[in-house]
């Protein structure tokens, strides 16, 4: 009896220990508290207070990096290259392979005999928490089946294994089928994006060297033909392509960017302009069945969403749990290709169906990926047309005088809130992906009638080197005039041309600066 109690105690302790370690591993993944230090090697002075040093091995995540000088924490990680060069005093900026930094007192790190290190969180392999959870279950399992009936252990394990095996086979069949059908029948948004990918390098022509990615704002606002002609007038040769697709927000963009870079086999792309919008997390009920949500909620986006909901202390736990559950629905729908075949069949049968219209028209009316919302409305039918008309009508009703209604972008000088760490992390990922491809990332904002505080915060992350903000009503009042707009969030054809002209001016300056640096 005593021996049994002892065994049980040992097993339960072991289980609790593994469970605790699993918890530690999970927390470490989302809110790291175990860190490691790396010495900064090969320091070089780059003028002013700016120094650079190599990081070996390269970092996987650099948004939470801290700079230590002789073991003491210094600096502000969210600094731009110019800030580091001009301000010094520990400002630094960390990229994956190297760090741009300054000493705490403005002295030259090559001469001040101090040791510089960066402190980064320890990143555990993804399977560690799973393994620890499994290990924590094993003692319980042994305890459950062996107490007085050890002879049943093997049959029990076999039975359990069989049930697990069947469950695995079932899931294999289910997910495999869903995946196959998902590949064979893309959603309407995927179809549009596939079409853009297929046409962005026309045979016999030089492939584009500028790509614009982003949501419907990018899709409807940037006219590549206009941009290229203005750039040519300025003596800069660009061939641009608009990859904008509806609903692509910053958290979904790595996936889109990945596909574009993969398609650019010969690395022609030199400038990748990424549109920024507010980092929205919560899914509106009205959008739960939207195909775009199913498209964009891949594992990476869901991991970030989970991380956000787990760590964002500013919201009540219940609220966060509900929000995550709501976001999980479109994710699950996406994984299961839910209703995808149904939508396709109904669209084929119904003459008024508008989904897949883009596929049928094979990009009719598009010009290098661009299609103005006015032109879209001319060819739209059925529900799509109704939605466009309704939004346009609502905009016309809601406008105040000549100006567009809606919240003001905010008075100049307002202190922006700190950027979400995750937001900065995504921007870092995007930048790194573009840099690794040999291109230059440029971030862009659009004139929409929403508060731009979050975007201003994005600008302060230090990740963004080139940011073209064309979103301020004070600086660009004409872009907010009703005659240039289609609705609250989108410019019309004339507005798009006007916007593109401003964008071309700003982009040409960046290109000139970057080329002169080289």
């Amino acid at each position, binding site marked *: 009896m005593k021996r049994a109690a002892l065994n049980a105690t040992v097993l339960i302790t072991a289980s609790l220990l593994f469970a605790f370690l699993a918890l530690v591993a999970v927390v470490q993944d989302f809110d790291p508290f175990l860190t490691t230090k790396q010495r900064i090697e090969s320091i070089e002075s780059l003028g002013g207070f700016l120094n650079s040093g190599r990081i070996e091995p390269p970092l996987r995540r650099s948004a939470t990096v801290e700079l230590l000088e002789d073991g003491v924490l210094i600096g502000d990680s969210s600094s731009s290259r110019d800030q580091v060069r001009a301000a010094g005093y520990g400002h630094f900026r960390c990229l994956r392979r190297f760090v741009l930094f300054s000493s705490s007192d403005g002295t030259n790190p090559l001469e001040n005999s101090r040791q510089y290190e960066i402190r980064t969180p320890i990143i555990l392999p993804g399977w560690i928490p799973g393994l620890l959870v499994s290990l924590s279950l094993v003692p319980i399992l042994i305890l459950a089946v062996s107490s007085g009936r050890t002879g049943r252990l093997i049959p029990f394990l076999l039975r359990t294994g069989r049930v697990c095996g069947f469950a695995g086979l*079932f899931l294999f069949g289910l997910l495999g089928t869903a995946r196959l059908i998902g590949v064979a029948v893309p959603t309407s948004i995927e179809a549009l994006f596939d079409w853009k990918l297929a046409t962005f390098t026309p045979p016999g022509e030089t492939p584009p060297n500028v790509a614009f990615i982003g949501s419907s704002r990018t899709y409807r606002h940037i006219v590549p033909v206009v941009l290229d002609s203005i750039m040519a007038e300025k003596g800069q040769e660009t061939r641009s392509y608009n990859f904008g697709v509806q609903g692509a927000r910053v958290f979904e963009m790595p996936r889109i960017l990945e596909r574009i870079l993969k398609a650019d086999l010969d690395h022609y792309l030199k400038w990748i302009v990424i549109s920024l919008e507010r980092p929205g997390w919560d899914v509106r009920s009205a959008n739960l069945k939207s195909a775009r949500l199913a498209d964009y909620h891949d594992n990476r986006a869901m991991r970030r969403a989970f991380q956000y909901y787990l760590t964002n202390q500013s919201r009540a736990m219940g609220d966060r749990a509900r929000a995550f559950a709501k976001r999980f629905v479109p994710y699950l729908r996406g994984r299961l290709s839910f209703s995808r075949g149904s939508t396709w069949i109904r669209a084929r049968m119904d003459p008024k169906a508008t989904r897949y219209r883009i596929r049928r028209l094979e990009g009719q009316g598009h010009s290098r990926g661009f299609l103005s919302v006015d032109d879209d409305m001319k060819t739209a039918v059925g529900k799509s047309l109704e939605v466009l008309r309704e939004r346009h009508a609502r905009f016309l009703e809601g406008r105040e005088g000549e100006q567009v209604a809606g919240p003001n972008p905010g008075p100049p000088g307002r202190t922006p809130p700190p950027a979400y760490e995750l937001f900065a992390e995504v921007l870092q990922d995007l930048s790194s992906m573009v840099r690794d491809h040999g291109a230059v990332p440029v971030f862009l904002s659009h004139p929409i009638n929403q508060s731009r505080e979050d975007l201003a915060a994005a600008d302060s992350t230090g990740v963004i080197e080139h940011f073209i903000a064309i979103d301020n009503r004070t600086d660009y009042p004409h872009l907010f005039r009703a005659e240039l707009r289609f609705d609250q969030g989108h410019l019309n054809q004339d507005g798009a041309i006007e916007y593109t002209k401003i964008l071309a001016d700003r982009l040409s300056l960046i290109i000139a600066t970057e080329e002169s640096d080289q």
Partner: protein
Amino acid sequence: MIFTELRFLVFFAIVLGVHWSLRRNRARKVWLLACSYVFYGAWDWRFLSLILASTVVDYFAGVRIASHPDEPDRRRHLLFMSLFCNLGLLGVFKYFNFFVDSGVAVLNTMGIQADPSILRIILPVGISFYTFQTMSYTIDVYRGRLTPTHDFLDLALFVGFFPQLVAGPIVRARDFLPQLVILRKRSDILFRPYVLLFLSGFFKKACVSDNISGIVDTYFSNPQSYDALSAWIGVMLYSVQIYCDFSGYSDMAIATAGFLGYTLCDNFAFPYFSGSIQEFWRRWHISLSTWLRDYLYIPLGGGRGATLFRYRNLMLTMLLGGLWHGAAWRFVIWGGLHGFALVVHREWRAALERGARRSPIPALLGMAMTYYWVGLTWIFFRSSDWKSAFVVAKAYVFLDGPGTNRLNPEALFLVAILALAHWVAYRRGAIAIWYRLPRPIFVTGIGVVVGVICTLIASDVRPFIYFQF
């Protein structure tokens, strides 16, 4: 709560789990009755009172009829009392508005203005089904074909058993009540066929019927603007829709009951492969057609007596069968057209028998003719008004469509695929092959089927068509 909704699947998982964990038969029955009432109450708990009233009346009627075997008058009075109550419920809740509207229309045609200040009554879900079940119970007791149950719980569960409560199959008490006496073990149940049946029904309803319904609605909402080909497409799609909708529901109902250890009767047997209209009615909504045969057609005289008398019985049965489907004249016409076809078919068969000849019509042509006629009758079943019905019928029969719009002919391709799949199942017994598969392949196959269902499921869940009856 609809069988294809997630909340039903959750509800059923709980019902099933608790049901099989209970060891006593009575506890299981109490649990199932409670769940059945919750299921029905999810629509409108107020109408539970009608089910209870019907159950109470027939319980006492059954017991009293059986306790007076030598008093025919008293037995007859008790039977009439039961029929009066059940038909009264049906009359008030289903046909009241219809009769008042019809009366007003007649008066108006006679030039008498009548004010149709009608009490607008909501139609309780499934009332036609459970009143027919309770009526069959009392009639069977009266006829001496069934010993009445003295356990109120058994009768209440027979009437309210949730798998078949709202849209059948119309179960006979003599088939169901004996099952309630037996305590079943989980190992007695072959789950595999029921899994397949449930998935098959789910697929028919959520993946076929619900996907087709949009295009059918588009056509029937404005048939004037479509051409003749569209009329054919619309009618064919509707024939597929209603079959998949109703037989899908029946399959799921039978499977749901099966998981719980109870057997319900079949309701469909590939009706569109019928070689004649008579065969069609042996394969379509079997539980209703047999009910009408046993409790209406045969008591009216059935196939006995003079020719005209027999045909009168047939027509009356089909007209009332049509009216059972809905309180509208178009359903009566639907029944009438079927009755007419049955009469013609009987005449034709009688003529062949008199000449000792075989039918000159090949089997395939017979199927096509039957399908064509059934399609014509569906027009009246589906159309929202007379004018639309005649427009569609004209386009369907004379190939003369009034409009120029056309539904996508690719829809016919879809119908062809479905017909082929149906044919394979009909000829080969495709589902039976699944029974014999090794378990790992079976489980993987079920995963594949669920995967296909997930991708083809319509995003908007629609109620079953027969719920309105």
